[in-house]
């Protein structure tokens, strides 16, 4: 009997990324006739546990208080022990795309004698192997990897997957006490960037600005547009590198990989490294003066116009429609 595990951090809760990872896990489990288990690193809220139990056949929580404060070495030890506590017979261990999951994935794969892969946009079983699709060469190509060892430990472009459906009856929940060593690298401080609203990766709508804006001020104008439609704000590498907006706004190969329902690219030409960060968005809209900009080959609809002319008027109209 082979099963699938989704491994989440309790402190992040059952967010949209975890829902997508669980959804990918359920689809994979069904395809191989196995169960979906949720492995939870650290204490989680009652709501998050209930939500996980509703979609998984089994939930195993490493509830040590120490795990509430993320330390990579301990999270890794926890994941390894949770894997065993859940039965250990997993063809795949799926993680979502937060920083912590990303750094744990290859190391967990090594400890479990499995394969590892990053940033998968699609997965499927092929016999004993898992096939994982992802972008390569800065978004210029799509590659499909054959993962040859079990378990395949893969972090997913999680928001791109449909949330897991609720099951007829909730799965069993087990709390286990894990043996943790003191970490040899210790995170001692966090300078949490002032961030309003939700994580960019979890935002259903994103309004992003690029080099064409020419400076930091126009992002204020874009904020009004974002507020009118309940969107979060992002930016291209050029805008972040220029210091117009904080680095954690960056969408692209070296920034965040997002897959919202709607991505609005304003004054962004659409370099392949940017497309790599947002190419899985359900709907892309573009505002750009250059009709030949690559972004127009990657969007559903758009307008060839100066953003200065468009954005205030667009904001006004959308405010009226929402009101």
């Amino acid at each position, binding site marked *: 009997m082979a099963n699938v595990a989704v491994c989440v951090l309790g402190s992040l809760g059952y967010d949209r990324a975890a829902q997508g990872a669980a959804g990918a896990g359920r689809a994979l489990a069904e395809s191989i006739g196995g169960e979906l288990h949720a492995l939870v690193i650290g204490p989680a809220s009652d709501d998050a546990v209930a939500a996980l139990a509703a979609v998984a056949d089994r939930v195993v929580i490493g509830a040590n208080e120490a795990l509430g404060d993320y330390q*990579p070495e301990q999270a890794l030890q926890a994941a390894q022990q949770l894997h065993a506590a859940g039965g250990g017979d997993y063809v795949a261990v799926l993680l979502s795309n*937060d*920083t*912590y999951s*990303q*750094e*744990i*994935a*290859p*190391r967990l*794969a*090594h*400890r479990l004698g*499995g394969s*590892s892969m*990053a940033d998968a946009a699609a997965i499927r079983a092929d016999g004993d192997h898992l096939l994982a699709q992802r972008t*390569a*060469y800065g978004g210029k*190509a*799509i*590659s499909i*990897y*054959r993962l*040859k*060892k079990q378990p395949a430990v893969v972090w997913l472009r999680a928001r791109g997957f449909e949330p897991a459906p609720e099951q007829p009856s909730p799965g069993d929940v087990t709390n286990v006490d894990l043996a943790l060593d003191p970490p*040899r*690298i*210790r995170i*001692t401080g*966090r*300078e*949490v960037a002032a*961030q309003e609203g939700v*994580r960019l*990766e979890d935002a259903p*709508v994103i309004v992003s600005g690029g080099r064409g804006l020419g400076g930091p001020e126009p992002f204020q104008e874009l904020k009004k547009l974002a507020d009118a*439609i*309940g969107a979060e704000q992002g930016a291209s590498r050029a805008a972040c*590198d220029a210091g117009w907006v904080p*680095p954690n706004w960056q969408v692209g190969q070296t920034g965040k990989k997002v897959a919202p329902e*709607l991505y609005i690219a304003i004054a962004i030409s659409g370099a392949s*490294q940017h497309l790599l960060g947002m190419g899985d968005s359900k*709907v892309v*809209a573009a*505002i750009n003066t250059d009709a030949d900009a*690559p972004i*127009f*080959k*990657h*969007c*559903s*609809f*758009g*307008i060839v*116009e100066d953003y200065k*002319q*468009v954005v205030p*008027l667009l904001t006004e*109209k*959308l405010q009226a429609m929402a009101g």
Partner: protein
Amino acid sequence: MKLLVCLKQILDPDVPARDFQIDPAARAARRGGANLVTNIFCENAVETALQLREAAGGDVKITALCYGESSAEDCLRKAMAMTVDEACLVERDGNTNPDAAAVGRVLAAAIRRLEQDGGPFDAVLVGRESGDWGVGQTGGLLAEELGRPALGFVESLQPGNGGVTLRRQTDVGIEVAEAESPFLVTITNNEDNVPRIPKTRDVMMSYRKPLQKLSLADLELDSEEIRAGSSIFEVEEIFIPADEVECELAEGDTLEERVDQLAKRIHEVVASIG
């Protein structure tokens, strides 16, 4: 203090999309007229190590290590021109795109060899991912091969209380960490670790610095498994996505009409999310 920086030579990622081609037999990009360059995050790692040496003020030795073709000597020379002290090239023999498990094992064996006299490197620095395949697994797998603690997405290393203080980028902002030697970090870019341009004099000097070459046999890794480099994963298929999506451009005689069309489309999508 001793630092080791791992480098990867890759196809220039700035090749425009229109010149980019796949070699179906090799299941990789065709080189065409593109240059081979050092992966940018690896150069950020070199710069980060140099800045730690400058901040520490004392005796810090930096070694650059690469598993690659003989052409990768250029990357190591450039690192030494940036004032890295010495370099080591493990000559790749076999698969030109080995999986991260093979790379991790080769780098780990080379690091242990380099540590035979003089003890462990205090820190091993690896780029967070490469600009070609971008799988980003090498750092984590190397940490496990070496049995050392690791931290990802680090942007700076500074001398700390008896160890090294690390700053790194996460989803929620900056995290600060304390590390005791030996440890491994993967390096990401920020405005402060942009790789320096080598001075002409240092470029000349780089040819006088030691560059050691090792073969897989020297490292007792002369096996079919390492050569094939596909024990945990391999590329099954690679293709250029059809990017000609039909974009519906807003039409109308006046700006007002065009923006109105755009607003309606956006409103439609937003309303459907609920």
